[in-house]
């Protein structure tokens, strides 16, 4: 059930959430804060129970709250963010250093607090004979987003990796506050630019769930095509980039060509390369003609076939296997403890996929096979991506063939007041929007990004690997900086 979100408003919401997390068979989805009309802070917990039901707990808090990190380490970054953005002290947190605000942040500037608490950031100092520190970033060598990585190495071998992100923190959640519900999709598209359609759909669905709206079948099918096409683009580019990182230039160029072919087909038949400006609450902004969809479908099918053959060659090339196999292993227990989602989770033996676990839109009527592997290395993450391209291509072909006729959008009561959630399986994993709407304007928007969830897992896959394999391992996770930093 997609919208099966049971909400507890009891005064013991926080204790209930902790108890549920402790009980097992649960996964922490998100922790976030909110300030109510009287200026009091609230803490919200979102928990996935048994992989098929989301539960929501919230409680008004005064003073400190106990940390959930001893129950699940996945809470660590959420609680640090809560501390930074809402000034809520967290008892028992092992490392409550600043996450969002850096040293050169203007001292008295804070989105919500008059007297912000500002701590000093200290990297973990690894000591011993021959230990060196290698700082990398925020400005990197390639055309990539900014973030800081601090390696502690002995020779080439990495002992410890520490991340310092939030360089692209744009205050997007605060940016949502006060804008009309009808304008939110545009902002959602700019949270993580290469997953823009997934963000727009997740936002739109949150509004639809809040108002109890149902998108017409044609709108649902069109959204599925966009979402799966975005997944294909992401995975094809990732496999190519992995080849680039092991100096296998020909397939890297070939995948770049396949990706561009899809983008150009979208531009020609849909009018936008990345499906921006297409999803809005209620359905789609405009209809796409059956003729154009067929043309797009022909190119998609050809590309998927081409990619499958290419991937087969790549993953059977000994020099590639030599670099991919047993590199950057993320163990299943670690992935579970950190609440890892998306392709990284599925490559580490966790069968998590929102499309399957909490189906939404057209996915409710589909039987979806979730490919998963157990080795948790770069090879497994590459294989998951190549397998998923084939699944996505099939889903798109089916949707185009069985395209329902009729309306592509439903009417939205723009001036209403409501609260809603929605989760979408973006190419990077579980993406969730939480919205509170009053009189047609957004009061609070929380974005649970799969990258925020997965970044802490990357350092766990590094120790024991050589530093030269870092770009490869990092790319195999392919996390968004902007999506994480928001």
């Amino acid at each position, binding site marked *: 059930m997609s919208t099966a979100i049971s909400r507890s408003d009891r005064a013991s919401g926080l204790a209930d959430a902790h108890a549920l997390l402790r009980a097992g068979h649960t996964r922490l989805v998100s922790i976030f804060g909110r300030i109510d009309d009287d200026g009091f802070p609230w803490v919200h917990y979102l928990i996935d129970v048994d992989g098929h039901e989301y539960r929501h707990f919230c409680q008004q808090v005064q003073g400190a709250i106990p940390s959930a990190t001893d129950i699940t380490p996945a809470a660590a970054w959420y609680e640090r963010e809560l501390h930074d953005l809402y000034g809520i002290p967290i008892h028992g947190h092992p490392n409550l250093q600043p996450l969002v*605000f*850096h040293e*050169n*942040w*203007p001292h008295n*500037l*804070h*989105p919500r607090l008059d007297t912000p608490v500002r701590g000093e950031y200290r990297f973990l100092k690894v000591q011993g004979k021959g230990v060196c520190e290698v700082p990398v970033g*925020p*400005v990197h*060598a*390639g*055309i*990539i*987003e*900014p973030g800081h990585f601090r390696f502690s190495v002995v020779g080439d071998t990495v002992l410890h990796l520490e991340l310092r992100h939030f*360089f*692209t*923190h*744009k205050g*997007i959640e*605060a*940016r949502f506050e006060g804008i009309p519900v009808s304008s939110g999709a*545009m*902002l959602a598209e*700019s*949270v*993580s*630019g*290469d997953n*823009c359609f997934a963000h727009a759909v997740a936002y739109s669905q949150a509004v639809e769930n809040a108002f109890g709206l149902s998108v017409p079948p044609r709108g649902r099918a069109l959204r599925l095509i966009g979402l799966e096409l975005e997944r294909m683009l992401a995975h094809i580019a990732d496999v190519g980039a992995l080849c680039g990182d092991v100096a*296998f230039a*020909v397939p890297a*160029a*070939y995948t*770049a*060509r396949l*990706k*561009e*072919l899809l*983008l*150009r087909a*979208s*531009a020609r038949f849909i*009018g*936008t*390369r990345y499906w*921006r*400006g297409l999803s809005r609450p209620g359905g789609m*902004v405009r209809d796409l003609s059956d003729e154009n969809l067929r043309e797009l479908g022909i190119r998609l099918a050809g590309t998927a076939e081409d990619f499958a*053959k*290419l991937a087969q*060659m*790549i993953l*059977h*090339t*000994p*020099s590639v296997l030599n670099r991919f196999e047993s590199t950057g292993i993320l163990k299943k227990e670690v992935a579970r403890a950190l609440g890892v989602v998306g392709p990284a989770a599925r490559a580490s033996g966790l069968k998590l996929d929102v499309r399957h676990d909490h189906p939404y839109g057209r996915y409710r009527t589909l039987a979806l096979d979730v490919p998963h592997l157990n080795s948790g290395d770069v090879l497994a993450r590459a294989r998951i991506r190549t397998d998923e391209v084939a699944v996505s291509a099939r889903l798109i072909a089916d949707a185009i063939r069985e395209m329902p006729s009729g309306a592509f959008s439903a009417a939205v009561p723009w001036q209403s007041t409501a609260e809603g959630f929605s989760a979408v399986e973006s190419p990077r994993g579980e993406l969730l929007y939480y919205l509170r709407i009053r009189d047609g304007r957004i009061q609070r928007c929380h974005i649970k990004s799969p990258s925020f969830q997965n970044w802490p897992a990357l350092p766990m896959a590094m120790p024991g690997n050589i530093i030269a394999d870092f770009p490869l391992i990092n790319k195999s996770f392919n996390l*968004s900086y*902007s999506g994480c930093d928001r």
Partner: protein
Amino acid sequence: MIFDVAARSFAGKQVLIPVEELLGDCTGSRMPEVDPTHLNFDSAVRAIDSCPTSALRFETHNNSRHFVLDYGDCTGCGKCIEASGGALRVATRLTQCGIGRAALVRRWNLDTGEELTQGTEAPERAAQQIRKLLGRALNIRQVDAGSCNGCEAEITALTNPYYDLERFSIHFVASPKHADMLLVTGPVTRNMEEALRRTYEAMPSPRLVVAVGACGCSGGIFAGSYAVTGAVDQVIPVNGYIPGCPPTPAMLLTGILHVLGREHARS
């Protein structure tokens, strides 16, 4: 296997797009353009009311009303095209790339329907110096100062076999110390401001800076956020602006060549 991959690649047909087709093309960018024959006061009001950024606005000069379209602020959301009943339409050609900030702003006199002309600018001194020193060669260092990664995806596409930036002797380099041009995306965030300034300072002279995307040009939809300093030119001097959200690879290429004064270049 390596040979299979190579053979497959060579067997594919040539996809390189001729430079004549690329320059000025903006297909798929969703940028709007004005159709002056349908532009009147009513359609202008509807378009301006629908614009979620400040890309569309009225201005009054000497008692005549002007309709202003600022490409530096436009995210191509398409709302004005939907609302204006034909006065704005999706553009397929956009030459307003790689030019000064003021030149991104176009104006129409609503009483006469005529566009108010702007002077064309000569390539800047830094661009002339670079051309004199290096001929056609150019090294670019890209910096993401807070972007959503949309612009990065399109900049990366410049190196694919369709656009093949290297045919113009233009390379992306890993260090600002090797660069002649800094390609900056994103609204500059407070956390990135210092890093951007230091990257700029590390570049040798003569140097060029190009602001990319609605966010880079004007701060875009993030202008005014507590976490954002603003447009790129609020932090370092900028020589050229490339609008779009994100700009397509063709727009990026047009803009880069325009800043260099090579807009009539052949590949």
